């Protein structure tokens, strides 16, 4: 600012000195120039503040993920999951800086970008905000996608394996899908719409978690010989509940920040209300469902419901009206409960419900764009309920199928390779004693008396 207005005044002086009385036009015109410049600078400044606020909030979601995942598992594996959650963000920051950003937003083909390694040689302004601010916002997203997997593979995955995985997903896998949708890739070209990442972030993370948890096999003691499922209850529900609030809080930045610009505020206002209504309805619907099906209002499930609603509304948040957000959230709340049940029936052991929440509801949310989206809100085609035309719906389906296929194959190979090299799963003894001691040589709650009977 200073520099600018100094330039301005200089300019102004000079033009004063060179006798103004002759050509006033110049004088006045110079003014508007000043204003215009001021205004565009101001606008970019405001947008940057908005994007950075979003980035900070999305970063903070990392804490939310950590607390939810830690709270929902057993005390003896708490340090392990927290270390994973903490380091995958560090890894993501590094990987997305060196390689990821270039693959996602660099000049390239429909499959991947191929320029801007380490952000070098890029225009200092991206999408109307400073490149560095834009990067931070995107990097925080990348971290979120990476950490989702930690929950699904919790309580039995080797720490070194996780480190490798987290670098690969944030440097390669996530950015490629991101390029398809947000980097001008093939999905973007066919008008696939995922406003804030139901597909790019959550489906990617959720499906990766599913693949991983399938390859890891269930935790010791999770399913009895007779096939009956045992509950391996979480050890710290208050922590998990705090985590859910942090996630919800951060999600406002996740969705509303994705506008990348404030404009007159009407769009970010719409996104914020949709985000909130979907989360609230997800929580209510999940509680009602679990209450009816299992006789008790289980908090852990109600919280999963709110997250499900948030995940589902992430893609459509900018394209739908509040009533639609309510429907989307409520349906997601129902889906997640059934999803948890189904996984248990299939003996797929997903300790925190990473796939039902992020995978299933990520897909559902992406599809909802095709159902409830409105062209008047910037979508390519009106959604099914408005147009009766399955056009957009079809496009969304393609996007979902493409992404799921890519992740299943890509992450399948990655996990397989890790398993064959460093190995994915800890020994039975270590698992029984807890990964905190085995992997990190420390305990989460020193001095506390804790039964480790299950």
């Amino acid at each position: 600012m200073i520099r600018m207005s100094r330039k301005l005044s200089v300019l102004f002086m000079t033009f004063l000195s060179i006798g103004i009385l002759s050509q006033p036009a110049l004088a006045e015109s110079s003014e508007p120039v000043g204003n215009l410049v001021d205004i565009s600078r101001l606008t970019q400044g405001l947008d940057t503040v908005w994007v950075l606020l979003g980035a900070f909030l999305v970063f903070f979601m990392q804490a939310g993920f950590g607390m939810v995942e830690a709270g929902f598992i057993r005390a003896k594996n708490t340090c392990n999951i927290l270390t994973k959650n903490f380091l995958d963000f560090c890894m993501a920051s590094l990987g997305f800086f060196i390689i990821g950003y270039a693959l996602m937003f660099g000049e390239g083909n429909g499959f991947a970008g191929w320029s801007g390694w380490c952000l070098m040689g890029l225009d200092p302004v991206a999408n109307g905000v400073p490149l560095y601010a834009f990067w931070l916002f995107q990097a925080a997203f990348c971290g979120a996608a990476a950490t989702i997997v930690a929950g699904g593979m919790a309580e039995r995955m080797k720490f070194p394996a996780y480190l490798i995985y987290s670098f690969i997903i944030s440097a390669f896998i996530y950015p490629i899908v991101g390029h398809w949708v947000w980097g001008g890739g093939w999905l973007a070209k066919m008008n696939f719409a995922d406003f804030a990442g139901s597909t790019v972030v959550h489906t990617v993370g959720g499906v990766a978690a599913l693949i991983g948890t399938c390859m890891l096999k269930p935790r010791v003691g999770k399913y009895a010989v007779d096939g009956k499922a045992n509950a391996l209850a979480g050890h710290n529900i208050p922590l998990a509940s705090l985590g859910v609030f942090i996630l919800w809080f951060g999600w406002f930045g996740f969705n509303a920040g994705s506008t990348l610009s404030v404009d007159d505020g009407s769009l970010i206002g719409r996104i914020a209300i949709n985000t909130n209504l979907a989360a609230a309805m997800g929580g209510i619907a999940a509680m009602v469902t679990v209450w009816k099906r299992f006789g008790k209002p289980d908090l852990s499930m109600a919280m999963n419901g709110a997250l499900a609603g948030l995940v589902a509304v992430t893609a459509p948040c900018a394209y739908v009206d509040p009533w639609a957000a309510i429907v989307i959230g409520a349906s997601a709340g129902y889906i997640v409960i059934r999803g948890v049940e189904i996984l248990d029936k299939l003996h797929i052991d997903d300790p925190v419900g990473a796939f039902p929440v992020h995978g299933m509801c990520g897909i559902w949310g992406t599809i909802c764009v095709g159902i409830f989206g409105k062209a008047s809100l910037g979508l390519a085609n009106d959604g099914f309920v408005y147009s009766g035309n399955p056009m957009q719906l079809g496009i969304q389906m393609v996007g979902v199928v493409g992404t799921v296929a890519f992740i299943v194959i890509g992450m399948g190979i990655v996990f397989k390779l890790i398993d064959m090299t460093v190995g994915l799963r800890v020994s039975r003894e270590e698992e029984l004693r807890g990964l905190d001691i085995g992997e990190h040589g420390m305990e989460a709650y020193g001095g506390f008396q804790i039964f480790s009977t299950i």
Partner: protein
Amino acid sequence: MKLVIAYIQPHKLKDVKQALYKAQVTKMSVTNALGCGEQHGYEESYRGIKVEVNLLKKVRLEIAVNQDYLERTIDAIIEGARTEQIGDGKIFVLDLGECVRIRTGERGHDAIG
């Protein structure tokens, strides 16, 4: 000398302690325990999975007393803990061969109190 072990309902500890004080039994040790007995447990459900809980929260008392204090100790515990409902608990009495006060090295009867 006898060692009295009693399992009671946690919320009864206060009453039992008062009853014991009245009976001039002022020394005791308490630990946190889980117990299953006649009292049937309850069902929990976590993320859609039913859990049959039959190990219920109890409090374990350990009291070393001289022979002549035994009966009043038992009576005091019963007085404090009884609700006549299943789950009230149990009292076990063992022979105590020796007792030593660490501070003084005293042994036997004098060491107990």
